[in-house]
């Protein structure tokens, strides 16, 4: 038998697992054996207390106390019920605001929907009459944004309750606004119109730089690139431009060639206004200019044979344009999706970076 303790004896002794009896025997051996004692001491030192002078710096204490303060404040706020009340209040407020918004939007949309303006219908009197570039069918409804054009022999009638608007040949009339509150606005690009009002309909005309608004009356406007004429058969009409304003009374005719003067209406014009029939003679005298200034589609419309072809061509052009727009939209969508994906990837990398830290 060896003169030394076994490794196992020392392990048990050092870790405190040895029985009291064995521990006493081992201690006795250690008293007399330097080598075993040294081993036992060294192994004991593994699990002995190691004093240390390391101290954390003061900022740690401050951070801990400040955290305590923060948590305490939160608890106090919660207990006093201030925050929840504010929260409830703000939540309630937000809900109320949302509710009001929804109601307003509903009412507004409802109003928008209800307010489709005056019911304006377009009747073709003779020749080519076109609504929004297509041959007009009778009683077509004119809405905001409609464009009415007439060809060489074209005459049309736009009517509403208590209102009639005769449109002469080679005319182009747009309706930028049809609103029961603000009235109808006509934009006479070119040609001639006769306006006959017998109701309380609100309307006005824009003709180049001139704004023509009635004061309850019948009148005729002729508009070309060279001049604008307004002839009044009943009531009064006001013509306004940035640099002038004139009221035309019954039986007078005004021309932009002499904006400060009024002349008497000749009987032929008076007849036209009264009957509402242009008879293709009196609308525009400056036909030479018309070819240059007539609406793009008007030229195509005059040839009755090419009518349908023209419309078809226009439809084709629109289709092509629509396709191009869709393509562009898709391109933008793709780009947007790409941007979103890039952004997500960046966020992911950032998160990973933070996690690793």
């Amino acid at each position: 038998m060896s003169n030394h303790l076994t490794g196992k004896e020392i392990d048990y002794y050092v870790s405190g697992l040895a029985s009291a009896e064995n521990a006493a025997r081992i201690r006795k051996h250690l008293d007399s054996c330097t080598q075993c004692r040294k081993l036992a001491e060294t192994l004991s030192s593994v699990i002995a207390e190691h004093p240390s002078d390391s101290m954390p710096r003061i900022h740690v204490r401050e951070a801990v106390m400040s955290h305590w303060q923060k948590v305490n404040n939160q608890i106090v706020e919660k207990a006093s019920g201030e925050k929840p009340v504010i929260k409830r209040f703000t939540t309630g407020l937000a809900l109320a605001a949302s509710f009001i918004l929804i109601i307003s939007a509903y009412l507004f949309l409802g109003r928008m929907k209800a307010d489709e303006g005056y019911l304006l219908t377009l009747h073709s009197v003779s020749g080519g009459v076109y609504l929004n570039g297509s041959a007009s069918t009778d009683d077509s409804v004119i809405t905001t944004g409609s464009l009415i054009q007439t060809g060489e022999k074209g005459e049309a009638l736009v009517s509403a309750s208590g209102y009639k608007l005769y449109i002469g040949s080679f005319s182009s009339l747009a309706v930028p606004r049809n609103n029961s509150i603000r009235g109808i606005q006509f934009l006479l690009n070119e040609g001639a119109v006769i306006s006959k009002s017998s109701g309380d309909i609100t309307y006005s005309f824009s003709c180049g730089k001139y704004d023509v608004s009635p004061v309850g009356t019948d009148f005729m406007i002729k508009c070309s690139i060279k001049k604008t004429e307004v002839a009044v058969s009943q009531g009064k009409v006001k013509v306004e431009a940035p640099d002038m304003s004139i009221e035309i009374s019954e039986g007078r005719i005004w021309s932009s060639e002499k904006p400060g003067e009024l002349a008497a209406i000749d009987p032929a014009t008076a007849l036209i206004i009264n009957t509402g029939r242009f008879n293709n003679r009196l609308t525009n005298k400056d036909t030479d200019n018309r070819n240059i200034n007539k609406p793009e589609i008007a030229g195509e419309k005059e040839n009755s044979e090419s009518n349908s072809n023209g419309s078809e061509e226009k439809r084709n052009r629109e289709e092509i344009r629509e396709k191009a727009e869709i393509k562009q939209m898709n391109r933008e969508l793709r780009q947007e999706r790409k941007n979103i994906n890039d952004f997500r990837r960046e966020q992911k990398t950032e998160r990973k970076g933070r996690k690793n830290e």
Partner: protein
Amino acid sequence: MIPRTEIERAYDLYSKEIFTYILRSVHNRDEAEDILQDVFIKLINYSVKSSVHSSNIRALLYSITRTVCIDSARKRSRTKIETTDITMLPDRSRDIEEGTSDEIIGIINSIVDTLGEPERSIILFRRNGLTYSEIATIMKISERTLKRKVKSVIEYIRKKLREKGFFIPDDTDKEDGSFN
């Protein structure tokens, strides 16, 4: 929630020893301070939901510290700061008397750092002066199980030292079982 005076008292009493434990675990002063702060913050947060008695604050602090240190060790890809590489040490045939105490301490510390859990925590607790009873409470294991774990560590270290030629009064491990 723990009263301010109580948290102040706990910090003044235990921050030093907790800091020592953390420092021995992470070997980095700045990181140790961060973890110490984190430990006390966790104690405060814990005290909001559960009651904390002054009698169990120390054990609670150690329990939190151990968890935070293990988490922190998992998170970082730790580069070993201990300098002693046991493979570079002198080879065999050394007698116990020849090993200088610094050298031996270096070797033992490097071995402790390579230990897994819960062995490493147990050694660090012991080095911080905790009794078996206290460690058993913190780790929620029996004292006997704890001692067995300590024994396995002592045996492991002894064998590692023997591999390097230290402390070999008798190489034979007698299996008489009389110590159990």
